[in-house]
C-alpha cells in the first residue's frame, strides 16, 4: 500500500497526549461493548431454542438425530483453535511476526475444519429430511447453531484480512489492536460454543 503511515509521522498519537485520545484503546473498549450485544443476541436465540426444543410436531427430537462423535470432534477442534489464537497473541507480544502469522493461519484452518464438519452435519440432516421447516425444534436448532457457524465463518474471513495487513504493515499499534480484537472475538465464539455443546447437544441426548 502506497500510503505513508500516519502513526509513523506522529509518534505522540498512540500515547494519548494532551487532548487526543488513544484511538486503539477506544476501539478495544468499543469492541467489548459490541460483545455484550452479541452475547444478548445469542441469549435470545438460546432462550428461543429452550422454549421450542420439545416442539417437534410429531417429528424426531434431539435424541433421534444428533450424532455425538462428530459434535465432540467439532468441539475439540474449536477449543484447540481458541488455544492457537492465544498462542498467536503470545507470539505477537514477543514481537514475532512469523509466529503470529503462523498461529493465525493454524487458527483459521482449524476454524475451517469446524465449519466443514458443521456443514456436513447440516447437509446430512437435510438429506434425512430434517430441515429448518420441519418443526419448531429444528427451526430453533438450525438458527442457533447456524448463527454461531456464521459468526465463525465471518471470523475466518476477518482473521484472513488481518493476516494480509500484518504481511503489509508488520506489527504496529493498529494491526496489534486488530489481532487483539479478532482474538477476543474468537474466544467469545468458543465460549458460546461451550453453551451450544452443553445445552443443545449434551442436554439433548441425555
Amino acid at each position, binding site marked *: 500500500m502506497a500510503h505513508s503511515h500516519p502513526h509513523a509521522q506522529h509518534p505522540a498519537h498512540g500515547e494519548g497526549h494532551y487532548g487526543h485520545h488513544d484511538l486503539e484503546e477506544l476501539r478495544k473498549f468499543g469492541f467489548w461493548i459490541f460483545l455484550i450485544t452479541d452475547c444478548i443476541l445469542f441469549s*435470545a436465540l438460546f432462550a428461543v431454542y429452550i422454549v421450542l426444543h420439545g416442539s417437534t410436531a410429531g417429528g424426531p427430537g434431539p435424541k433421534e438425530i444428533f450424532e455425538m462423535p462428530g459434535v465432540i470432534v467439532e468441539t475439540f477442534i474449536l477449543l484447540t483453535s481458541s488455544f492457537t489464537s492465544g498462542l498467536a497473541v503470545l507470539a505477537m507480544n514477543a514481537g514475532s511476526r512469523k509466529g503470529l502469522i503462523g498461529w493465525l493461519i493454524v487458527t483459521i484452518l482449524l476454524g475451517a475444519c469446524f465449519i466443514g464438519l458443521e456443514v456436513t452435519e447440516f447437509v446430512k440432516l437435510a438429506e434425512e429430511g430434517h430441515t429448518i421447516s420441519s418443526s419448531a425444534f429444528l427451526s430453533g436448532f438450525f438458527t442457533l447453531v447456524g448463527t454461531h457457524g456464521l459468526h465463525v465463518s465471518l471470523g475466518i474471513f476477518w482473521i484472513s484480512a488481518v493476516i494480509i495487513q500484518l504481511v503489509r504493515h508488520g506489527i504496529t499499534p493498529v494491526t496489534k489492536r486488530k489481532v487483539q480484537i479478532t482474538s477476543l472475538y474468537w474466544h467469545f465464539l468458543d465460549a458460546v460454543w461451550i453453551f451450544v455443546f452443553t445445552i443443545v447437544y449434551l442436554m439433548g441426548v441425555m
Partner: protein
Amino acid sequence: MLDKIKDFASWFFVTGDPLIYGADIAIALTTLAIVFVLTYFKKWNWLWREWLTTVDHKRVGIMYIIASLLMLFRGGVDALLMRTQLAFPDMKFLSPEHYNEVFTTHGVIMILFMAMPLMFGLFNIAVPLQLGARDVAFPFLNALSFWLFFMGAMLFNMSFVIGGSADSGWLAYPPLSELTGSPGVGQDFYIWGIQISGIGSLMTGINFIVTIVKMRAPGMTWSKVPMFTWSVLSSCITIIIAFPVLTVTLALLFLDRYLGAHFFTMDGGGNAMMYINLIWMWGHPEVYIVVLPAFGIYSEIVSTFSKKRLFGYGSMVFAMMSISVMSYFTWLHHFFTMGSGASVNTFFAITTMVIAIPTGVKIFNWLFTMYRGRITFSTPMLWTLAFIPCFVVGGMTGVMLSVAPADFQFHNSYFLIAHFHQVLIGGVAFGYFAGLYYWWPKMFGFKLNEKLGKWAFWIWNIGFYVCFMPQYFVGLDGMTRRVSTYGWDTGWWAMNFTSTIGGFLMGLGFLFQVWQIAHSIKFMEKDTTGDPWNGRTLEWSIPSPAPLYNFATTPMVTDRDDWWEEKERIAAGHKPKAKPELEPIHMPKNSAIPFLQSVCWFAVGFGLVFHWLWIAIPGFIGVFATMLAHSFNYNSDYYIPVDEIKRTEAAARRSV
C-alpha cells in the same frame, strides 16, 4: 411482452387508490425538483463532499434531524388520515385495508423513523460538545449508523408506492404477520426497513457509550457530567441491551416467512406468544430509550432558564440509571390479558408501578430547580413547562393501566391510545422540540423566531389536549383501537369528532413550526455570542456554529456547569482559565464507505423483500467489499495545522 410488463407493473406498484396516485405524482415531482435544483446550482459535488461523505458529528446530527422532521410530516399525515376517517361514523374515506396500513406505518414511522433519529440527531449535536470532545469515539461508524437508518427508512417508506405497506400493526404480531396472514411483501419491507436501521441504532448505542466513558474532557469526573449526557448514557445502555433482541425477533420472523421455519407459526410446533414476549422485551425498553434523553433535555433547560444549578443531581442520575435497569422487567404489562396467570401478572404489575417512582423523583427535581429561580419563558422552557403536567397525567394513567385486573377493561381500548400518546407526545416529542429550539443556535448560528414559536407552542398544546383527552373517555365507553369505523348507535361520534379537531390543530402547530424555521432562516440575526441562552455547559463556550474541530484547545473542567462557573468567576473579576498552547488537531477524513455500504444494505433488503437474489447477493458482496475496503484503508485521518486553527478562531472571534 407488453402484457407481461403491464402485469408486473400492476403487481409491483401499488394501484387503485387515488390517494396513492396523488402521492406517486408528488414523489415524482419532488424528486425532479431536487435533481433540477442540484443540477442548476451545480451542487452535486457539494452535496457529495460536504454531506454524503461527512463523518463530522455536527453534520450527521443535522442530517438526522432533517430526515426525522420529514418522517414526522409523513407520520403526521398518516395520523390525520386516520382522524379524518374517524371524524364521523360510517365514513368511507379510507377502506378498512388501507386503514390497517395507515395505522401500522404511523406507529412504525413515529417511533422508529421519527423519534429515534431525532433523538440521535440531538445526541450528535450536543454530546461531544458537552463533553469537550472533538468528535464521537467512532466518527466513521457514526456516519454508517446514520446512512443505515436512512436507507432503512427509505426501504420502509417505499412500500407505500411499491408492493404495498405492512398492515399488521406497528409490532406485527404473528400469526397475522406470518405468510398465512400477510402474504404480501409489505411485511417484508417492514422487517428489512427496521432491521437495517436497527443495526444502525445498535452501533450508535455502542458509539455513544464509548464516547461518554472515554472522551470526557480532563477534569470532568462523573459528578461533573452534564445531565443530558448522563441521560444519553442511560439511554444507550438500554439500547445495547434491548436492540439485539429486536434483531433476533425480526430475523426469526423473516426465517418463518422466507424459509418456512416454525418459530411463531400456528403449525409445526411454533409459538406465537413467544414473539409477543420477545418483541416487547425490546419494545418496552424502547419507550424508555426515547424518553430518557428527553428527561436529560428538560434537566438542561430547566436549570439554564431558571439560572440555577439542577436540584438533586445525584438523585437524578440515580433515577435515570434505575429506570434503565427496571425497564427490562416490565414488558409483560403490554399483554396482561394474554393468559400469563395471576402470579406473573402480579410481578409485572408491581415492577410497572415501581418504575413510576424514579420518574416521580425527577418531576420533583425539576420543580425544585424552578423554585425561587429567575425563570425566563423562552420557547425551550415553555415546552418544558408544558411537559410536566402533561407527563404527570400520562404517567398516572399508566399506573392505572398497570393494575392488572383493571387492565382487562382498559386493554386495547382508546384509553390506552390516549395514555401512550400522552407520554410519547407530552414526554418525548415535547422534549425533542425543546431540545431542538435550545440547540438550534448552536447548530446554525441563529435562534428561531420566538413569536412564531410561541404560536406553534400554544396551538400544539391546545390541539394535544383537544385531541387526546376525549380518547380516554371514548375508550372507557368501549371504543377499541384499530377499528376503521363505528356506527351512530355507539355514541362515540362527538368525542371522536372533537379528537379529530385536536389532531388537525396539532397539524396546524406543525405548520407554524415549519413557517417558524423558514422565517428564521431568512430573517433571524446571527448569534455572535455563541451563548445565546446564557448557558451552563461547555457547548456554549465555543462559537456558533461550532468549528469543525469543536474546541481549539481541550477545555480543563473544574466544576459541574463549568462554563457557568467560569462566567461567574470572570464577572467577579478573576482571570479566565489559562488555555494551553494550540497544537495540530487530529481529525478523521471524510469517507464514502458509510453511504455506499448502506446503499448495498438497501439492495440486500430490497432483494430479500421480493425474493430477488440477483439483487440481494450483489448487495451482500457490496457490503463485504466496502467493509474490507475500510479495513484496508490506513489513510483515514489527518491533522489540522495550527495556522489554520488560528485563522478559523480569529474569523469566529471577529464575528463575536
